[in-house]
């Protein structure tokens, strides 16, 4: 194939053509499509392996059990999109959990107020994380690791290490509530996902998040107050982690300081599998939710296939590694497509730019050169 036809084929509309032209929406679709394929194939295999899989109860359970991770992953996505990371989410979940039950039980506060306080605590922790990262300039990994320890410890101190139960009836009601036959928590999670997607794709704040994560220097030089954007992302993550705390309280029907140990790693895996770049600036909430679903599917498979509990962690670990490897592979293919496009694009451009350069735009070096004299005197090496 000569280069001219190559150029033409790369500009031809159609799916592959669009990958090559570097169309961003298409690239993201490829990401989601890949995940969808994995999920669909996984589901079919699982359905063949056990008839229980395609029952309504199991499917509902699959979604339902993914909701907490999904909510926290939505917040975590903001942080990872600005090229940060929040390891404190599991601990914040536990702290919010003991607070929202403990405050009514121990201090006699109204339930709604204790929920607000629990969410406020999540926001404050996010704010402190954000300040540590932007103002004190502690690396995000360390700042949030320290916060993870402090928050978890506070949860233990407050609860005395015991589960706080029984929970106020509101929690039980939320847990059982259904709208159109679908559990409320699932709808809530989807709504939160839609909201986050809207914020990221259609608001100046969302744009600023992508810009800050994509290139913080360039964003700052374009008048974006990048520190504020980063700060806000950590606050969002803190709040979603606290929401996760309320949700887990409802599920366990107890305020538990031990809840959500290791949740941060599941959440981060889901976000990354969902196509958010750990370097920031790239990824969509839709992908993140699919990532959460994939991890949920793995957990579901482990339960349905009676994998011995001790193999649990190993199997999930292997699946995460495999998914991440697949993702890297896919990315490489897309990048290669982009590179090809950029080379071809340049060729194409110079080809179409056939108009002659205007003669007066570039000084004519050869003609009007009064330096001829001295130059000629030098012995040009031969």
């Amino acid at each position, binding site marked *: 194939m000569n280069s001219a036809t190559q150029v033409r084929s790369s500009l031809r509309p159609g799916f592959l053509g669009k990958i090559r032209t*570097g169309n961003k929406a298409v690239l993201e679709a490829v990401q989601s499509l890949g995940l969808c394929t994995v999920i669909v194939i996984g589901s079919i295999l699982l359905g063949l392996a056990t008839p229980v899989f395609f029952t309504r109860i199991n499917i509902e359970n699959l979604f339902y059990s993914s909701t907490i991770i999904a909510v926290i992953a939505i917040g975590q996505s903001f942080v990872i999109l600005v090229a940060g990371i929040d390891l404190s989410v599991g601990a914040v979940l536990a702290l919010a959990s003991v607070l929202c039950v403990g405050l009514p039980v121990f201090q006699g506060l109204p339930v709604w107020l204790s929920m607000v306080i629990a969410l406020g605590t999540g926001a404050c922790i996010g704010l402190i994380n954000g300040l540590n990262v932007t103002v004190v300039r502690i690396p995000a990994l360390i700042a949030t690791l320290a916060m993870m320890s402090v928050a978890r410890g506070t949860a233990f101190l407050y609860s005395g290490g015991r589960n706080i139960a029984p929970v106020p009836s509101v929690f039980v009601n939320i847990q059982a509530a259904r709208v159109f036959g679908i559990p409320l928590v699932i709808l809530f999670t989807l709504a939160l996902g839609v909201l986050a997607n809207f914020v990221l794709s259609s608001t100046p704040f969302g744009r600023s998040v992508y810009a800050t994560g994509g290139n913080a220097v360039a*964003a700052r030089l*374009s008048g974006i107050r990048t520190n504020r954007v980063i700060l806000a992302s950590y606050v969002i993550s803190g709040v979603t982690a606290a929401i996760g705390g309320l949700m887990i309280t409802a599920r366990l029907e107890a305020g538990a300081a031990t809840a959500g140990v290791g949740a941060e790693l599941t959440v981060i895996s889901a976000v990354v599998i969902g196509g958010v770049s750990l370097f920031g600036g790239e990824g969509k909430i839709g992908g993140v939710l699919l990532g959460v679903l994939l991890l949920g599917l793995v957990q579901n498979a482990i339960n349905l296939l009676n994998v011995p509990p001790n193999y649990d962690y190993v199997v999930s670990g292997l699946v995460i590694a495999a998914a991440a490897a697949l993702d890297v592979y896919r990315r490489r293919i897309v990048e290669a497509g982009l590179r090809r496009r950029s080379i071809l694009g340049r060729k194409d451009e110079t080809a179409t730019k056939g108009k002659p350069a205007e003669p007066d735009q570039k000084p004519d070096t050869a003609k009007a050169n009064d330096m001829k004299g001295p130059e000629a005197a030098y012995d040009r090496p031969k």
Partner: protein
Amino acid sequence: MTEKSQALWKADRQSATAAAAEHVLVARGICKSFPGVAALDYVDFEVRSGEVNALVGENGAGKSTLIKIMAGFYAPDRGEIRVNGKHLRADPTAAHKAGVATIHQDHNLVPSMTVAENIMLGHWPSRFGIISKKDQTKRALDALGRVAPELAPGTLARRLSPAEGQLVEIARALSEDSRALIMDEPTASLSSPEIDRLFALVNELKSKGLGIVFVSHWIEEVFRIADRITVLRDGKLVGSAPSAELDQERVIKMMVGRAVHEITSSAREPDKVVLEVRNLSRYGVVEDISLEVRKGEVVTLAGLVGAGRSEVASCIFGIDSYDAGEVLVNGKHVAPNDPTAAMQAGIGFIPEDRRRQALIAQLSVSTNATIAVLDRVAPRWVISAEREREIVSDATRSLAIKMSSPRARVSTLSGGNQQKVVLARWLARKPSVLILDEPTKGVDVGAKAEISEIILRLASQGTAILLISSELPEVLALSDRVLVMRSGRIAGELDRRSMSPESIMNYAATV
């Protein structure tokens, strides 16, 4: 120096004198082009044993490319490099083995390692995978003996002065078989006594028969050290002659000597001052900078790389803080160290390093073009796709940006079109002052002319332009006034009548 190495030096010298040509390093007919620009165009260069050949030229003349080819970092598109008469393939390790030692411009020492470890970096002497400290120290001492016997091998590199660091780099680069030493701007960070020390070493190495390639902007320095001066301009060889036959003025003419075409824009009536900078200082970087730019005026900061031009721009736009002074736009004080405030005050800034400071590679052309006008594409907090399309299509038309689609990643565009996207970002804001730092760097000739035109058009529409440029033809064609910077200060001001390549270089390159 050990006896063995001394003997080798001697043997080297004898064989060098014995060789008929005496040329230790020869580049013949070198061509190298990077996308869009011809970096080198049939350049010949050679250095003889026991000679310092200074390679001079303006920024972008192709000096760095040439030495990178000679050091084996780039493969030339055409032509060949010979070391001691033998063909050299493009491989830094092979070049080093063949006897070409290179000192790069930026310091390349690992600060947390000792002098000895730095010298042996990458070739630590080891037995069964274990580094032998004793052997390392011994070999480092050998190497140091050739250039700086006074340095202790156990010193941490971060404790060294810039000059000492440079000596360590020279010790690392030189091996017993070194025939040629390439030094890229070796004096850039040195004080004057340190330069004396370096020059003494260069003379010593020269007398031992090495051929030395010395790259510098500083004409006076070149005349102090060079036996021969070779001038490059726009990737072409202008000439090469023994330095005794040249003088400063002639070298400057050779460096900049191109005809300056007729300046078309007529002198304007003095308009009101838009940007005013009063006594701005950032200690140790720029000092006592005062300047004003009027409505519709193009003022250029000229000078050599490192003279502090970009730093002045960084202070004005609030990227860096400053210790003294004040910036005013339209008579109003601009808060320091806050790019957002500077932007709101009406300043636009196009930074030098497009990839690192301006573009967000993962995002689309249209997002990149509207990132500085988020408040305008999103009245009431939600981005209006329609407004975004309007802004982007306006810009695409008026700047003639070529792309496959506004949704394509910005990284798929060519350099010139990427720069136009950055321009579009600021033009959408309609700034009253636009600062452009090397706006035509790395763009091809056609795009260069277009960008120059855009700058003149903006000025005629009343934008006050502060331009930073290292390309003299561009400076002369666009500027109403030129401020020449040297070592962090404004060394001189030139107006339309007094500006010429020579007058600019005189302020910029002489002390």
